């Protein structure tokens, strides 16, 4: 038996007190806790702390290149690793757009430079179309080779269904999934606000949930027709959930994500016009929240993602309708979704599936499931520790979150990646 280099002692995993043994950056063994001496191994006392596999976020905006004042790759990855994430997939809507291997290479170089000794892994997502313009296909083979894990026009969904079909076909040749931001641009002239009672009262231009569901329906029919996998980003409403459930029953190869804020907030949060509640797709109704929670339970929704969208303070502190959409999510996602477990709204097993197994299996990313040989990516977590989400406690440059000022519960105490302590 290989000799352990690192031993995590008396941490709690699935209700049992265990010791975790690491060798050469990989999991050696997880076994019931004992007082065995391990000559030469670093021992970390973890009594009372929970052991968790590192999380994967398949949907973030890191803003570099082009908008480094909002976030850069280094600050985004720092927020990620403090928030419990080991794998991060970043969207292509940068400037220049990540629509060629040169940009992909540069993103990966910046990620390595931010953590030269090893750190959270960055997996860029390439654009489906050049410049995200929805006119010509982007060179997806070249980007896949450079390290892109998927392709998406997130933020600027492809209007032209014929071109979207060709993008799915061409993308599938690379073996990497296509992710669609579901929003019919013709039905959605005003983003960020759900069309309904609250938008009427506040007098805000809004878009209906059918703008999302219409495009979900298109994508599902397309995936079935082409017999190809499609991943649907940030699902927010009951209509989309119903369509996905229908498609899964028919055997369509579809996976879907939702974000913490769609489970914890409703459109009621918009009263007061605070632009941190402006997000695309918009916050929906209590009925939609109920549908999403049920969809997590029955597996219709496969995974969580943050849709981390940092913005500078001066960009959000403007008239509501002028403010950009988005919530800065990496710092708080773990605590927010953990509160769903603590409140009995989702199970612990679903929590692990939604943040680790499903995203890693869907996008073929390194996965730690505490089996021998898995990458030793894990963190120690104190579920009881309270902390205030504010400018000082957030590592992201983007402080734009409707949860700002709130006391959250559950904190990462230390985070190990490939067996090395990063936090």
């Amino acid at each position, binding site marked *: 038996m290989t000799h352990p280099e690192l031993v995590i002692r008396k941490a709690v995993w699935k209700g049992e007190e265990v010791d975790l043994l690491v060798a050469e950056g990989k999991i050696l063994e997880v076994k019931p806790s004992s007082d065995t001496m391990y000559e030469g191994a670093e021992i970390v006392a973890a009594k009372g702390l929970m052991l968790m596999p590192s999380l994967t976020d398949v949907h973030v905006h890191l803003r570099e290149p082009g908008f480094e004042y909002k976030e850069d790759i280094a600050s985004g990855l720092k927020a990620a690793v403090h928030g419990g994430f080991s794998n991060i997939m970043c969207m292509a809507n940068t400037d220049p757009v990540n629509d060629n291997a040169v940009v992909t290479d540069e993103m990966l170089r910046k990620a390595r430079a931010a953590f030269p000794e090893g750190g959270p892994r960055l997996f860029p997502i390439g654009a489906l179309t050049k410049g995200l313009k929805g006119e010509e296909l982007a060179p997806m083979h070249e980007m896949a080779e450079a390290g892109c894990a998927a392709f998406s026009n997130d933020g600027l969904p492809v209007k032209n269904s014929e071109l979207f079909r060709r993008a799915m076909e061409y993308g599938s040749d690379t073996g990497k999934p296509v992710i669609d931001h579901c929003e019919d641009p013709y039905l959605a002239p005003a983003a960020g606000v759900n*069309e309904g009672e609250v*938008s009427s*009262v506040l007098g805000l231009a809004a878009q209906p949930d059918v703008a999302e569901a219409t495009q979900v329906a298109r994508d599902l029919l397309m995936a079935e027709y082409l017999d190809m996998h499609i991943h649907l980003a940030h699902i927010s409403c009951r209509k989309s959930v119903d369509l996905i459930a229908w498609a899964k029953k028919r055997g369509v190869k579809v996976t879907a994500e939702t974000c913490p804020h769609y489970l914890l907030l409703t459109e009621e949060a918009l009263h*007061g*016009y605070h632009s941190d509640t402006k997000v695309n797709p918009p916050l929906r109704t209590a009925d939609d929240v109920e549908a999403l929670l049920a969809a997590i339970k029955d597996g219709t929704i496969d995974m969580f993602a943050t849709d981390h969208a940092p913005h500078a303070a001066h960009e959000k502190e*403007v008239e*509501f*309708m002028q403010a950009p959409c988005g919530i800065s999510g990496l710092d708080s996602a773990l605590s927010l979704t953990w509160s769903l477990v603590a409140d009995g709204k989702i199970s612990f097993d679903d929590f692990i599936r939604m943040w680790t197994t499903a995203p890693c299996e869907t996008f073929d990313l390194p996965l730690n499931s505490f089996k021998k040989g898995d990458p030793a990516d894990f963190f120690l977590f104190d579920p009881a520790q309270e902390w205030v989400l504010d400018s000082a406690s957030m590592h992201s440059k983007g402080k734009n979150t409707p949860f700002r000022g709130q006391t959250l519960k559950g904190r990462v105490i230390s985070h190990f990646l490939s067996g090395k302590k990063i936090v």
Partner: protein
Amino acid sequence: MEWRHKDLLDVSQLSKEEVQHVFETATYFQEINSRPVKKVPTLKGHSVVLFFAEASTRTKTSFDMAGKRLSCDTFSLAKSSSSLTKGETLKDTALTLEAMNPDGIVIRHWASGAAQFLAERLDCSIINAGDGRHAHPTQALLDGFTLYQEWGSLAGKTILILGDIAHSRVARSNLILLNKMGAKVRFCGPRTLLPPQIKKWDAEVYTDLSEACKGVDAIMCLRLQLERQQDGLLPDLREYSNYFGLGHKQIELAKPDVKIMHPGPMNRGVEINSELADCEASLVLDQVASGVATRMALLYLYLTRKK
């Protein structure tokens, strides 16, 4: 009555008794406005900034006159003036205004929520003179006051609001105010100009103008933005005026002494027949006069409130 509000963002903030108090205060100022010398020293030494980020000659003039009749100094900051050129944020404008240390700011802005944005950041009173599609409380109060002067009480009356409800802050604020004062409200317009979820609003909804007019005590026409046709919400103005413009035929279905109102400026021949706008039943010019008195009442109540 002791005035407890710092800002007037929407009529929903006011209780029925407070609205009644505004009406009574306005009645007093209406009397002053009929005197040969219309100026009183009530707000001498006070200053108010009229911050109009969206053009509106009539509302601005009305506030300006209201202020001046109370001997209050009024300063205008209009869209075209250099400090409001493109690029300066509302936050910076707010800080600039704050530095001038006025007692009140009257704001008209194209963005819903703009008045609240200022109210949360500044110490002086903010009076919303219309924000986006959200609210127009002073218009609702002056409309209510106009009817109060006619009828003495709004209780039990039925009032039809006609036209582009979806994009109208006047409709939203009037609905709240009229309901609060015991009146029933009807909305009428083509489906494309009615807000989503309108069934949840406290109003009866019609898409047939003749049905909507039956037995009503007053009809408030809204101004139609002529570009709604380009937005794909209407086929053309001819069709609109034929089906949703107020004409003699519909008036005959209403109560015999029906009142006709319009917040102005009117598109004659589009939302209202030109003769009706000038007829005996029309309160359009009364609304203008009530506007000055109501705004005098509001400036007085907000600027002299106990701090």
